[in-house]
């Protein structure tokens, strides 16, 4: 199980090169980074996985875009919308992560969506940037949403991922600091470790329905 930051934005989207992010990620205790629109590779012992974020796209276009992505081993994420959109999006084969639930509609993620996510092994992303950069209502709302997601996660056991959305090395946080931040919304250390390895779960092949003994 590799400790993974599920979304960073290296240069040119951010101000740090992917190598520098890898160098700092190593010092901060990570094993892998999912870097948006960056080719896969390995720098300073840190594995870089390509990440693709699809946002504001109707379901039909989403399916077409994912078909195009299927050959390269990218982690495909979809920005959350309303409840109907989320249910459809996580049902599409090839979608790995549903992101941005902290800023989505209040009813965007319910128990039925949670069940679909668990069945399709789609991870729900917990974005740490509102906890780091937000103050007041923004942070309170994110904490409230994450608490609610955790309630559903404990019941349906869908995978979780943790993302810093770092656009700079200054936005990256150490594993211990992230564990502390996650404790704000009720995640204990084993939960955080599980969430850090969420990318492993969603990118590994599912267990086959039939097992030869």
């Amino acid at each position, binding site marked *: 199980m590799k400790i993974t930051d599920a979304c960073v934005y290296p*240069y*040119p989207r951010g*101000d*740090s*090169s992917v*190598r*520098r992010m890898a*160098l700092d990620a190593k010092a901060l205790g990570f094993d892998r980074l999912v870097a948006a629109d960056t080719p896969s590779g390995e720098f*300073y012992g840190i594995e870089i996985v390509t990440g693709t974020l699809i946002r504001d796209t109707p379901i039909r276009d989403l399916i077409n875009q994912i078909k195009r992505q299927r050959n390269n081993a990218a982690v495909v994420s979809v920005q959350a919308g309303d409840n109907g959109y989320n249910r459809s999006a996580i049902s599409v084969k090839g979608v790995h992560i549903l992101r941005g639930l902290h800023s989505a509609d209040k009813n965007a993620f319910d128990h039925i969506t949670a069940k679909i996510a668990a069945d399709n092994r789609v991870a729900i992303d917990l974005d740490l940037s509102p*906890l*780091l*950069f937000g*103050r*007041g209502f923004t*942070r309170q709302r994110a904490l409230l949403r994450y608490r609610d997601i955790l309630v559903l996660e404990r019941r349906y056991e869908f995978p979780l991922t943790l993302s810093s959305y770092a656009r*700079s*090395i*200054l*936005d*990256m*946080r*150490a594993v*211990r*600091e992230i564990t*502390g*931040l996650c*404790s*704000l919304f009720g995640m204990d250390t084993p939960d955080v470790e599980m969430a850090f390895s969420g990318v492993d779960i969603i990118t590994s092949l599912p267990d086959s329905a039939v097992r030869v003994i």
Partner: protein
Amino acid sequence: MSTRPPTLRVKRRYLLIRIEPAGTIIDQKDLHYAISDAVTSLWGDAVAAVIMSAVVASEGQYMIIRCQRGAEQDLSIALSTITKCCEIPIALRLVAASGTINTLREKIRRVKIPESESISPRECTFDKKLFQINACNGQKIDVIEKGFKNTNRLFLTREDLEEL
């Protein structure tokens, strides 16, 4: 007011933090306000009063922050939410915690690395743009674009520059 006997004194812990990026000069008072703001924003006034944070010393990139014993975890969570100080983007990296300032000073002496190595030339090109090297430490190189506009800092490595 006479000093209290040791058993009645408030037990304290000291956190050693490193300020990033390298070469950023932050006034102790400004950092204190930033920490106080972050602690109050995250935990509220009641817990902030229990934490009793204060910046007690600074040595170059390193600062020592005092808090009440048992409140280190709360303070370190609040420290991780600090992203700016006086509109300067910074990150505070927790290096160590101790019961005495002396131990942390020794730690600074042990881990202290050269502030900035000399590198030649002091200018470089990256992504077809001319940059001035601002700080250099091992593999890490911080550069600032030359010119009046867009003087943002970029964080690169030696390999990024060698590749061009």
